[in-house]
């Protein structure tokens, strides 16, 4: 018996187990922090929109309503789970899980600060696209499996919306890939730090604009939240969901927003670094840890999400399609040609 154990427990296997343990620890830390962020993103959104509309927002639970997300979570957890009689049960169960899992899996390739990333893969950016397109299945299936016309219309709308805007988003990031010469997110951030302006948002302003609009459409947020337009479709694709399954859709949407904000921060705003001319002017800022800069950028983008939601009305569906196909995609293609030309001329 001890012989077999000796063969199994060599130096190598111990090292491997150690590595796996560290990865699990990282996953636990990232998931925990993200879910906490997601919970408080809802609170923050209600506060921001409340004050923008001259209301107070949540105020009753805890100091200034600070415990509201926890109370909401507990409430959703204990609510009755209702399943429509003619629903396709396996797919009805599966849809919110696909939606949530695809959002959480994307977290694995995001570098939060220098060296801290769960999976440092060469195709990080493509992996993010793949996962965001997988999330569309959650929406389409929930719409179909609920056997309700509101859900179904929401699902169909979302299917065509996500396909259309995924093209624009992919093309908008091609400029960044050309500037950095890599698909690895850590390398993209390092390439930005080497670049004179310190952020790709300045030379890639066209790409950044297309990315922002496409990111709003991809996450089904206002002004493009037609899949869940409450004035026409009750709640769109998750009309029939209740209790914790509804909460999974809710969490998935906010996680997707956090991920889009992180992609914006990493690909266009310099990730965990700040431009060199700022650190040259104020060397004290060098001591601030990278995660602080990263979080500031992510929060700023999240705030922008809320700001737009409180400001802009919803577009019509044909307008949404026209913006995607007739404005954003040509603009993104033009940006690629422009970036390529300027790169070969040596200007950028």
């Amino acid at each position, binding site marked *: 018996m001890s012989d077999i154990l000796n063969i199994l427990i060599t130096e190598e296997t111990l090292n491997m187990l150690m590595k796996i343990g560290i990865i699990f620890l990282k996953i636990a830390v990232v998931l925990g922090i993200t879910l906490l962020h997601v919970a408080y993103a809802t609170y923050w959104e209600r506060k921001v929109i409340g004050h923008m509309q001259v209301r107070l927002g949540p105020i009753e639970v805890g100091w200034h309503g600070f415990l509201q997300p926890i109370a909401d979570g507990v409430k959703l957890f204990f609510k009755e789970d209702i399943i429509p009689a003619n629903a396709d049960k396996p797919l009805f169960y599966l849809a919110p899980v696909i939606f949530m899992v695809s959002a959480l899996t994307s977290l694995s390739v995001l570098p939060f600060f220098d060296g801290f990333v769960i999976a440092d893969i*060469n*195709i990080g950016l493509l992996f993010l696209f*793949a996962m965001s*397109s997988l999330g569309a299945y959650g929406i389409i299936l929930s719409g179909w499996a609920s056997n309700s016309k509101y859900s179904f219309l929401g699902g169909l709308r979302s299917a065509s919306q996500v*396909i259309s805007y995924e093209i624009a988003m992919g093309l908008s990031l091609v400029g960044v890939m050309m500037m950095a010469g890599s698909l690895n997110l850590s390398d993209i951030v390092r390439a930005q730090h080497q670049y004179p302006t310190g952020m790709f948002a300045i030379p890639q302003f066209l790409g950044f604009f297309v990315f922002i609009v496409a990111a709003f459409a991809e996450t089904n947020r206002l002004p493009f939240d037609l899949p869940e337009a409450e004035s026409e479709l009750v709640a769109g694709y998750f009309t029939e969901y209740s209790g914790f399954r509804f909460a999974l859709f809710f969490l998935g949407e906010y996680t997707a927003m956090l991920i889009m904000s992180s992609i914006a921060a990493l690909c266009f705003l310099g990730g965990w670094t700040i431009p060199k001319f700022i650190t040259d002017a104020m060397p004290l800022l060098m001591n601030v840890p990278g995660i602080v800069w990263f979080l500031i950028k992510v929060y700023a983008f999240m705030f922008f999400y809320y700001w737009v939601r409180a400001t802009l009305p919803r577009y019509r569906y044909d307008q949404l399609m026209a913006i995607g196909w007739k404005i954003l995609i040509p603009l993104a293609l033009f940006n690629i040609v422009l970036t390529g030309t300027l790169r070969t001329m040596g200007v950028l």
Partner: protein
Amino acid sequence: MLPELFFGYFAAVIILLSVIVITRRNPVHSVMWMLLLFFHIAGLYLFLNAEFIAAIQVIVYAGAILVLFLFVLLLLNLREELKVKRFVGAWPAGLFITTAILVIVLGAVKSFVPGPAGKYSIEFIKQETHTKALGKLLYTDYLFPFEIASLVLLVAIIGAIVLAKRKTRSK
């Protein structure tokens, strides 16, 4: 041992999933099994160190084409479609053809010789990254076939637009 195990898993599951896909009664369930199948194919590409192809497999096939499949299925009236009789009734002919193909493939496997190892070894690709190596090859040595493929796709796109346009004109 580990590589064989991985390949065995992927090969077995891919065959199993393909059978499941074509035997489902409900076409939407069929599409979902196909999604799982595509992920396994992507896994097989990753296993071969072709990370770019794996990502494109998921983005293009699982993310776009399969969503379009689903879209078309959702627009069909499934209850009426299901009443249509089987398209092909002659299963002995099908069985004969597939067995013949199987015999040919098994015969061909015997005379299989692995090609000479070029400069694109695993170490080279790891150092160069797969995306870069593939892009360089596609835009230099294989530019002509690449352009022909894109021309074929362009023809298909134009054809689809012409078909769709004609319908609205006839109204």
